[in-house]
């Protein structure tokens, strides 16, 4: 079943996220980052940071939660079992730090057909609760085989 193009531009209410040191340490360790700057607040401050910084891909924890609200939107018509992660981009005003209280809001920025497949892109903007910009991300998902077949080719419209 194809994606609902009418959702292009739809904005979703923000998700709140409180950044804790233990979560940043856990995430850093899970990607093999043992540098003290990501684990020890003294090392982080000695490097000029207010507290432990997150590793650069950490915003995915927030963007995944934001994305889930989009993917679960019944109006979108997304079959998650057909989805693969196509592309991921981040742009940063500053790192995420332990102690940050963040708001992350999603917006559908692309709904396109690519042959038999469809592409869905969701942008997330992350700010602090006081309105300071932190980072933004765009996730591009490929939904395999969900595109509407061309009219008049005799098929029923069910995915191949």
């Amino acid at each position: 079943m194809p994606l609902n193009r009418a959702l292009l531009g739809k904005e979703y209410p923000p998700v709140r996220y409180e950044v804790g040191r233990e979560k940043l340490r856990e995430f850093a360790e899970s990607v093999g980052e043992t540098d003290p700057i990501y684990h020890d607040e003294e090392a982080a401050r000695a490097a000029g940071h207010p507290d432990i910084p997150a590793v650069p891909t950490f915003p995915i924890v927030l963007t995944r939660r934001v994305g889930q609200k989009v993917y679960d939107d019944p109006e979108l018509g997304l079959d998650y079992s057909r989805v693969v992660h196509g592309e991921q981009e981040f742009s940063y005003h500053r790192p995420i730090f332990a102690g940050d209280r963040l708001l992350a809001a999603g917006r559908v920025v692309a709904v396109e057909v690519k042959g038999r497949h469809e592409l869905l892109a969701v942008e997330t903007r992350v700010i602090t609760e006081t309105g300071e910009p932190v980072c933004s991300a765009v996730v591009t998902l490929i939904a395999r085989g969900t595109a509407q077949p061309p009219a008049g080719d005799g098929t029923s419209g069910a995915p191949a």
Partner: protein
Amino acid sequence: MSPRREVAQVAPGDALPPVHHEIQRPDLVKYAGASGDFNPIHWNEKFAKEVGLPDVIAHGMFTMAEAIRVVTDWAGDPGAVVEYGVRFTKPVVVPNDDEGATIEVSGKVAVKLDDNTVRVDLVAMSAGQKVLGMSRAVVRLA
């Protein structure tokens, strides 16, 4: 992590020290827990094969996290990354054995931009295949 790298010290064409990561199944479980991504293609072999994969595959975001370490180690500062983007071209297959998979990441300074920033182009390979495409970071140096 090296001391903060200065922009005056770098030139287009400079190679960043490459890194080599070994991944086994338990690493994917740990990453699933830390990231909240419990998609069964990253831990459930039966499910992965049912949806047409050769075996369990690593999270694309796991590979993306490994790849940026080439840049942050070289720049000497996690806060130096201004932009980072990748395309996921091939999956990293992680068999359920003692060897698992390896990811090799290399990078090169592509161009110097304004405001002490440089663009680095990255290449990430696993089992002889390019697993990340269009993989680039913009970093602000000292």
